[in-house]
């Protein structure tokens, strides 16, 4: 009989301790959209990470004031750099700094990798991969897809990416190329507010029939990952929980504010 509060699964053997603060040097920056920027860092003693993990960063002003935040890692474990894709938050002291001020050869403090629950490894994967991204929630899922590609994995993968408009789709070109070249990867883009005139894709918020339709593409249990704003994750993950085959695993990561 399982005792509540005692794990009956295998004990985690990997050491998930994030380690000390390190200096992270900016080696490149580029804009992904007009509201998101990617920054590539070099960290001398980076211990490696799993796709889906995140880092803590720390900024210190001259008067000693510090600000710390968490950011998902966009780069796969195969990339020697740590790439973060940061969105611009209105009146956000850290996101403003990262988007507008930080430049090549600057350095910040970084700590990680953090988080052992929302991770995916191509080498350990047995089930098809089903990813739901809401807005900037695509970042850790992109690390998973990049890792999958670099690992040469042929595991079936589906990304459902919901954003308000095409202009807000991060990594758009890279995802289109991936979908065009990989027969085992499929991309569905959902544009919920503004669609181009010739848009033939989905254009309303993800609902039960949509999730049922997506799940019908799989004939066995899936590894599902849902990431984005809290309301998106709540809606989508509970639908996937309700409609997916027994034996599916559903992991969630939520970003950002819950309110207006």
């Amino acid at each position, binding site marked *: *009989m399982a005792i*509540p509060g005692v794990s009956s699964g295998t*004990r985690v053997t990997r050491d998930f301790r994030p380690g000390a603060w390190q200096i992270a040097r900016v080696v490149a920056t580029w804009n992904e959209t007009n509201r998101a920027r990617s920054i590539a860092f070099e960290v001398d003693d980076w211990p490696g990470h799993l796709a889906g993990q995140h880092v*803590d960063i720390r900024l210190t*002003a001259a008067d000693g004031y510090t600000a710390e935040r968490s950011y998902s890692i966009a780069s796969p474990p195969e990339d020697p750099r740590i790439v973060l894709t940061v969105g611009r938050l209105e009146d956000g002291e850290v996101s403003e700094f990262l988007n507008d001020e930080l430049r090549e050869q600057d350095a910040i403090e970084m700590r990680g990798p953090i988080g052992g629950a929302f991770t995916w490894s191509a080498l350990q994967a047995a089930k098809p991969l089903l990813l739901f991204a809401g807005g900037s929630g695509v970042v850790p899922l992109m690390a998973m897809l990049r890792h999958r590609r670099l690992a040469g994995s042929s595991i079936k993968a589906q990304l459902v990416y919901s954003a308000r408009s095409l202009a807000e789709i991060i990594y758009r070109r890279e995802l289109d190329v991936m979908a065009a070249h990989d027969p085992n990867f499929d991309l569905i883009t959902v544009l919920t507010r503004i669609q181009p005139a010739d848009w033939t894709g989905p254009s309303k918020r993800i609902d039960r029939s949509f999730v049922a339709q997506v799940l019908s593409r799989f004939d066995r249990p899936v590894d599902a990952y849902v990431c984005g704003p809290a309301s998106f994750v709540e809606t989508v*993950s*509970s639908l*996937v929980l309700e409609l997916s085959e027994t034996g599916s695993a559903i992991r969630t990561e939520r970003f950002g*504010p819950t309110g207006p």
Partner: protein
Amino acid sequence: MITRGFHGKRKTTNPERLPPGQYFTNDFPVLSAGPAPRVNIADWTFELLAEDGAAIRQWSWKEFQALGASDITADIHCVTHWSKFDTHWRGISVERIFEAAGIAAPPAPFVMAFCDGGYTTDIPVQDLLNGKAMIAWQYDGEPLTAEHGGPARLLIPHLYFWKSAKWIRGLRFMETDEPGFWEALGYHSYGDPWREQRYQGD
């Protein structure tokens, strides 16, 4: 290390209430590793268990609520760096639960909180007593939503908020401090925000 070009924006008039590495928010973010579990209140129970799983005492939802409620107003601090001030909760204090179970002295120094959905977290018993913790079913005057851990969650505001286990179903006493869900994944065993104990080894 001074970060070139960073000046920061102080958002709160009470910076002394912010533990290191935290920022103030008026929002109430939701974080969890999986979807909110579906809970049928008719089947809901809260249990106190001995280390071997033997039940010390069990209550149904109605019985639990009848034990008496109290209120806590507290600042809360999430390991993902946000802090929220003056949050209002209603529920039953843990020492009232122990009293109702006839526990004069806790049988072991630690507990594992266990929850619908499989979440667990480990806590020293002393940190649950003396008004420091409750099982809460109301937030800000309203029934606790599923997203925020309803029907009931543990509330232990002096530790990082991952310790305030959502969807709680009971406490199992333990002799040693075994790691719960996040603790086994590298988060700190204790989690004091004022000593910035986010991860193992901090």
